[in-house]
């Protein structure tokens, strides 16, 4: 079965979720492009969008219609070629609408897992729960006559484990998109030992067609992205807890968040990022990693406590941030949660005291937003971190320790073969986390 034939019948499990909807969108666009090739004109293409929530599927239709329109508008130059044999489609607008119609017409929305039984390839984007993933994959495998290939979006579970538990005989790869899949260019591709070679080649071609930057981590829980993120988050939490003894918990959270954001020239602070990912998601991922890597220290009692108090972070359907350890107005943190009081404290009320504790930013500091665009950012950052080292204030000291710890995490990932090399680690950080610099650096 060649690439075109293989992709002709696909399914996305968890299609209405945050990750699933993006994966569905990219797959729909890829399938539509393939279906428009002259040799495929008379073939039926079917993409099964499967989710347990009927309501979420309804929202998914709207999302797809809007996003497919944007995709079509961006590639109208090439679409005019694909539709050149359709004399009635003359203006860009005709062509763009037809493309959206064509893409929507290959998608079948369903709440029933049975719909995936006819698929040649199955994208799995269910919640990060091993048993659930194994169960649904196994159910499809057992009932399908197509010997389907599975591409799982797991961000933490070793692929070999899923392969073994679902008895797939090498018909599964890790195909881990970053959030949101339609925007984020990085893709962690995990091909465990014994993986089907045709599946491997197919997946790499698909990733290329989806314009992804592919990094291939080793098949270890958490891979590179979460391998870094979870350890970095735990470091941030530990720093805050230590500082809290001296200055109070909400103050410590504000301080560490600000330092890990501004002083480290990162797009957001460690606690904002934890809220963005979802505190409950972090908890699940840490659990998987602690078990699989035999590292019980990958665990945070603070996270357990927050979850027990109903503080979970994550995003609303419109993409805006839900309250987490921080609370937000117009996307900016304005309050910090105090687990002892089970209440939020306004940042305004503690900012002056905390900023005085932190001390000034180096004069050469430029915010992440402007640094990221500069072609000579390496020189600028070297100069900046150099200046930071000459400073004695708390903020500078905490930032430098943070920077070193992040580098050590990166080196550990390479040493333990989770990453092939430092370049892969830095690619994930810069492309997937939008960092202005790689964590393995000489600053």
């Amino acid at each position, binding site marked *: 079965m060649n690439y075109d034939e293989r992709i002709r019948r696909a399914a996305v499990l968890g299609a209405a979720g945050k990750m699933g909807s993006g994966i569905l969108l990219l797959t729909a666009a890829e399938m539509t492009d393939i279906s428009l090739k002259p040799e495929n004109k008379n073939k039926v293409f079917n993409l099964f969008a499967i989710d347990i929530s009927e309501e979420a599927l309804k929202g998914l239709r709207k999302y797809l219609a809007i996003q497919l329109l944007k995709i079509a*508008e*961006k*590639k*109208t*130059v*090439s*679409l*005019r070629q694909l539709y050149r044999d359709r*004399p009635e489609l*003359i*203006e*860009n*607008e005709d062509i*763009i609408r037809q493309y959206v119609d064509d893409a929507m017409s290959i998608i079948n929305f369903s709440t029933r897992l049975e719909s995936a039984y006819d698929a040649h390839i199955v994208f799995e984007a269910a919640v990060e729960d091993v048993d659930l993933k194994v169960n649904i994959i196994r159910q499809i495998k057992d009932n399908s006559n197509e010997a389907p290939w599975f591409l799982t979006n797991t961000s933490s579970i070793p692929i070999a484990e899923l392969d073994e538990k679902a008895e797939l005989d090498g018909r599964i790869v890790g195909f881990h998109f970053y959030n949101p899949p339609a925007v984020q260019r990085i893709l962690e591709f995990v091909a465990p030992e014994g993986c089907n070679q045709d599946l491997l080649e197919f997946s790499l071609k698909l990733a290329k067609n989806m314009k992804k930057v592919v990094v291939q981590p080793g098949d270890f829980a958490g891979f590179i992205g979460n391998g870094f993120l979870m350890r970095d988050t735990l470091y941030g939490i530990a720093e805050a807890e230590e500082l809290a003894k001296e200055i109070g918990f909400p103050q410590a959270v504000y301080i560490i968040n600000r330092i890990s954001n501004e002083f480290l020239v990162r797009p957001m602070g460690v606690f904002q990022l934890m809220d963005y990912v979802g505190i409950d998601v972090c908890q699940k991922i840490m659990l998987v990693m602690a078990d699989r890597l035999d590292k019980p220290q990958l665990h945070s009692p603070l996270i357990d406590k927050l979850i027990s108090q109903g503080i979970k972070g994550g995003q609303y359907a419109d993409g805006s941030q839900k309250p987490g350890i921080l609370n937000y107005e117009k996307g900016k943190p304005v309050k910090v949660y105090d687990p002892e009081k089970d209440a939020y404290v306004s940042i305004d009320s503690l900012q002056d005291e905390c900023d005085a504790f932190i001390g000034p930013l180096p004069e050469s500091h430029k915010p992440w937003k402007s640094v990221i665009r500069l072609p000579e950012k390496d020189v600028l950052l070297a100069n900046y971190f150099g200046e930071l080292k000459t400073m004695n204030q708390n903020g500078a000291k905490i930032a430098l320790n943070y920077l070193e710890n992040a580098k050590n995490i990166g080196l550990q990932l390479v040493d333990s073969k989770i990453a092939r090399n430092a370049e892969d680690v830095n690619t994930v950080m810069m492309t997937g986390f939008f960092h202005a610099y790689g964590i393995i650096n000489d600053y």
Partner: protein
Amino acid sequence: MAAGYNTVSFGTGRKEFNPRKPRPGIEHYISEAGQGSLKMLGGAKNVDEGVVGNFMASRFVKQAHLGAFMPFVDEGLRHKPSHRVEGACASGGLALVAGLRSVLADSADVVLALGVEVQNSVKAIYGADILAGAGWFQERKDGHAYFFPGNFSDRAGAYFEKHGREKSRKAFAHWYKQAVENARLCSTAQEYHNTNPDLVSLALTPPNPKFFTEHLNVFDCSKVSDGASAIGILSEEGLKKAGIPRSEAVEVVGWNLSVDNITEKPKDLTKLETVATAAKKAMNMAGITIEDLATIELHDCFTIAAVMILEALGFADPGKGGDLIINGDTSRDGRIPVNTTGGLIGWGHPTGATGVHQAVTIWEQLTGKAGDSQISIPDNKQYALSINMGGDDKTVVAIVYKKT
């Protein structure tokens, strides 16, 4: 001509432009430019007739019948003649021609000529569909997604083949630099806020045919603009009636409107024959040569068009137009200053307004009203020329102005 007025050319580049926020409608632009000009003409009572140049408001903002907006500009224009004229991007030029004809036919002493376009109402990819109306619709299907950039990219490709690519692209980049630098001196220009320190490098960005055209990049293109311009066309009698001294006006001493067959492709992609013909006839009518010109406003819808128009006017032999630009001959203190407020690439290109905007700019320069953009007008060069082009060299309005 006298009493010129330009609104801001609004769109990307202006600090206050935000595509997600509501913007002024076409009524605002018609009203601002019309009233700006009327004020200088001594009020609507002095105006006998109105004419509106507009290309595609019927598609961009679903509004036709623009002639009837004149009484909206001023109650005093109620029940006076007014109509809208269209000739693609030469619609503004046609408004001037319509006004000139009325005055010359003695049916009016004062005509208010106004050009307007609002284009930011749709995304560029749909705007390209609308602007493609300036070509023959039967050719749309085979055309580029960005139809006119595609046409002029083909022209650029032919030009590169004949005269060399590298030098031509360099000339385009220098044209862009000149356009933006001139625009920085004019507060209504769309690129007025541009602070990029290295315009030539930016403009040398290699074209990407996957998302745009083969031979042109976005810096080779004029802007997508909302804006309007207005100017009074007056007889001697009209000047008296409006109380405008001759020194505040420019005299139209030659003009020409030429069209070519819209269903035919250009015979030679490297030449603009209609431009050459119209300019020659207008200058013959005025009894001048290019050596008499102090400044030119030319229709640089694309950088390649600027190069070809310079050649069509006779400033350079075929293939040598780019040298003029690279040498600085067309800069504000060069041999022949061209597009002194940035032209279509720097000032902006609200399509239906452009022909009128060119006349306003020349009126400002020849009457010493150009502010920071003012160039010196030598005693032995008292003339100026505007070239306004519709479609791909299909409708051309050339006008020769004389300092009074």
